[in-house]
């Protein structure tokens, strides 16, 4: 954590008073808590005061919050200094919080940092025109769109030195900028064509139980081999405690059940099961009985987008479920929003009212 300190005296404004808007906000926040517990609203008030003061908390703002909440100034100061989201020194008009945590770092945050250092200078330093300042922060939680920065309240993701440089140019010039991903993808969807999970059979229900079926098929020889394994449990020969010197024991390292099955042998080496017949040594294993019945569904409601209902004769879904290659998921017909499983819930697909 960077060393923080209060802004020097000459930077501190002489006074600070809540604007009517801040005052209203403060009263609203205080009303959330029972009488006498108004101090609970301290973080909300500090944040609002920071917003009003231009992105940082002057000493007078801390005192104003303390007075508003009937707290000792030191108590408010403790909070303002504890949380790094409160800036105690002036910041630029565009305060850039640059994510320097591992995922961003792996995706090229180092280059973004170089851009910041080149254009703005050291962190915690406001450019001469007051436009920019930046600060390296810990993970901001947009790792899938790494590298990213937060400028004031918005995230700017999928940065490259070039588009970040342009973004800063645009901001400095007052041109409109695009929030979120800078390469045009929507939220954190795959940034190029969808190329996974495309097999239509994944969505028609035909794969349900397939894995288990395959497992049962491969496991069958093992079951049939059991009597043989029991017979093999009788020691065939006395093994030497140590390999004879000079004559390395040839053992197949990759003696796996899969390999043995492929070679037409019993998947489990009978020698490994030699002790199985010895009842005293046996661990009691719950022999799972395979019955033909499917486990009862926990709920009649299916959370699969287009439930396949073989018992109703609907083997294939009514609507296409496979994304068409080349279309972005946001535009895909198959996009699900949860309304299928909860018909009573009206979902705002464009997510406008939030």
């Amino acid at each position: 954590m960077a060393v923080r300190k209060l802004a020097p005296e000459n930077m501190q404004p002489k006074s600070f008073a809540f604007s009517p808007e801040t005052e209203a906000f403060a009263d609203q926040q205080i009303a959330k808590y029972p009488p006498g517990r108004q101090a609970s609203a301290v973080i909300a008030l500090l944040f609002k005061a920071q917003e009003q003061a231009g992105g940082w908390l002057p000493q007078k703002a801390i005192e104003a919050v303390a007075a508003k909440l009937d707290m000792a100034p030191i108590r408010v100061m403790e909070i303002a200094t504890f949380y790094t989201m409160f800036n105690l020194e002036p910041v630029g008009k565009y305060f850039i919080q640059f994510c320097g945590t591992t995922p961003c770092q792996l995706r090229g945050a180092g280059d973004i940092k170089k851009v910041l250092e080149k254009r703005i200078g050291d962190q915690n330093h406001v450019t001469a025109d007051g436009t920019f300042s930046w600060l390296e922060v810990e993970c901001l939680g947009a790792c899938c769109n790494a590298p990213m920065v937060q400028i004031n309240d918005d995230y700017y993701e999928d940065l490259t030195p070039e588009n970040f440089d342009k973004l800063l140019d645009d901001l400095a010039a007052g041109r409109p900028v695009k929030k979120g991903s800078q390469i045009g993808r929507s939220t954190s969807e795959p940034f190029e064509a969808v190329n996974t999970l495309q097999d239509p059979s994944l969505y028609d229900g035909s794969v349900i139980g397939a894995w288990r079926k395959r497992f049962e098929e491969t496991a069958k020889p093992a079951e049939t081999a059991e009597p043989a394994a029991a017979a093999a449990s009788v020691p065939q020969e006395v093994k030497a405690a140590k390999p004879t010197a000079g004559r390395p024991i040839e053992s197949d390292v990759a003696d796996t059940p899969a390999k043995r099955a492929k070679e037409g042998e019993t998947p489990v080496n009978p020698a490994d099961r030699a002790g199985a017949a010895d009842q005293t040594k046996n661990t009691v294993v719950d022999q799972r009985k395979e019955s033909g019945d499917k486990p009862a569904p926990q709920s009649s409601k299916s959370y699969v987008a287009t439930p396949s209902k073989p018992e109703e004769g609907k083997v294939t879904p009514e609507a296409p479920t496979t994304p068409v290659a080349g279309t972005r998921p946001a535009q895909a017909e198959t996009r699900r929003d949860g309304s299928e499983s909860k018909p009573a819930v009206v979902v705002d697909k464009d997510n406008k009212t939030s």
Partner: protein
Amino acid sequence: MAKIIVDGVEVDVPPEYTLLQAAEAAGAEIPRFCFHERLSIAGNCRMCLVEVKGAPKPVASCAWGVRDCRPGPNGEPPEVSTKSPTVKKAREGVMEFLLINHPLDCPICDQGGQCDLQDQAMAYGVDTSRYHENKRAVTDKYLGPLVRTSMNRCIHCTRCVRFTTEVAGVEDMGALWRGEDMEITSYLEKALGSELQANVADLCPVGALTHKPEAFHYRPWELTKTDSVDIMDAVGSSIRVDSRGREVMRILPRVNEDVNEEWITDKARQIVDGLRLQRLDRPFVRENGRLRPATWQEAFATVANRVKGTDPKRIGAIVGDLAAVEEMYALKLLMQSLGVANIDARQDGTVLSPAHGRGSYLFNSTIAGIEEADAILIVGSNPRIEGSLVNVRIRKRWRQIALPIAMIGENADLTYPVDYLGAGPETLADILAGRHSFAEALKGAEKPLVIVGQGALSRPDGLAILSLAAQLAQSIGAVREGWNGFSVLHTAASRVGALDLGFVPGEGGLTAQQMAQGGVDLLFNLGADEIDVAPGAFVIYQGTHGDRGAHRADVILPGATYTEKSGTFVNTEGRVQIANRAAFAPGEAREDWAILRALSDVLGHRLPFDSLNALRAKLYAEFPHFAAIETITPADAASAVQALAGLGGSPGRDAFVSPIKDFYLTNPIARASGVMAECSALARELRLEAAE
């Protein structure tokens, strides 16, 4: 009660006990830094880790309740181990972490030798460091003239923050920043604004906060420790006077649950330099308008000459605020033998008098009794400066139950919310007449408490006000079997002792004010420095410091301060306590009773004792309750309050004014102290700032 097994010892403790308390009940010692019995539990130092059977990890015993422990599978009591290898390893780990950033400056640290961290490192420290990085460096903070900081040493136990917030009641200190950058400081490094602030240095388990005036002056193991009692106010806090050779080096609080718990005021602690400055170390005699050093014989002869030629009716004796019972008794006997009735120990003009019974001038509820009160009315007093530790008790009670507290007099910040009712006697009369809403609160209370201060009593109509307060106490049921809520808060340590002795004007005698204003030709002044003696009278001043009394004196007899003599003091509750001698008086100064004994010989009225023990034997024979040290001889308060209530009288309309203008400069010792002067200047600044 809950059963718990600590190290194999089964104890039965209240379920709300913490494991630490339970362990102590079982005789196991638990190391701790952040935990303090009188402060809230922080649980952040982790030194008190113990092993609880069934818990996956060691637990912090200071913050883990006995009732939170799970019993064993068959209902056995929970088991705690405080000495297991796991515990030792855990504590060693904690200690290692604490020492990562703790500087190795014990040789130059004032806490060396009295340091919790040092002591506990002896038990749990490892002798090498596995840490190769630089230690963290923290800038030292300014916390005022009494507390010196060395913040590199801080281990962030937050005891100081909790003390100032909870006990002292000023939210001055806090922990800023976080994690490794955490720093303890006051808001913008302002000086602490409490009259109890120096206690934080006592509380500090390391050397981060030390006493600034004593910095680098001594090592704790060089000091001779003497148990004593503080006389800076009438609370009579238990103190320990530490001296080296002839010099008192420091004063520390002693635990006394009945009086001061374990705090003392800054004035009680830091007047140490006042004990050696401005001292009168030889007799003086005024010749041609100038005081000149003299021998004891010369001084006594001068006094004897004067006394011989003066009518006993024109002789008077005044006693100051710091006198012990012994010398007051000797002076009273001497005056009696001279036939003098003008004796008074009430230089502030208070109306309290033994005539109305002992219960009329004691803090009858007792200081510890404040913790039972459920409604408090403070009349004409600012307990925060007149009896800071009484105020601490009221605040403690207010933290237990938010009881109604109201105040009549000068409006002041008492560190807890107070209903300010009014400034003068008429408000008191209103409450008595039931015309005030607070009367209901008092009437409804189980154990109401009325505290009357000297601000209401040191005035001509004081008796009428005292009577009014007594009537109120009676009408609200404050005086009854098992509870006496009529309490007088004194400001002078000598006052209750003097009243017990009957050191008040006899038949036709003059009061202190009358004597000072020219009522006598020869005034014997035993350490009264807060009274102006009008020109004309011949003043014999027996005292310790070159203060106002000495300036006015014609003969000065140098006496001993409370650390230089064995003296009995009676606190505002009527608790008899003895201050023991920790050092010797400077130069030719002598113990006060001995001076009076020697003077009586010269005057031809030899006092009937040759030793302190003989004096005390005679004193105890006459006033048996002085022999009951450390206890309060109960007074018949009910009849005293009845008598007071019957006095009646019509009080004036003047507002109550606190007798203490400056907390730090109330007596000659404090006025001689440079530290107190500094504190006083700072407090004045703070007051000006607050007034802006």
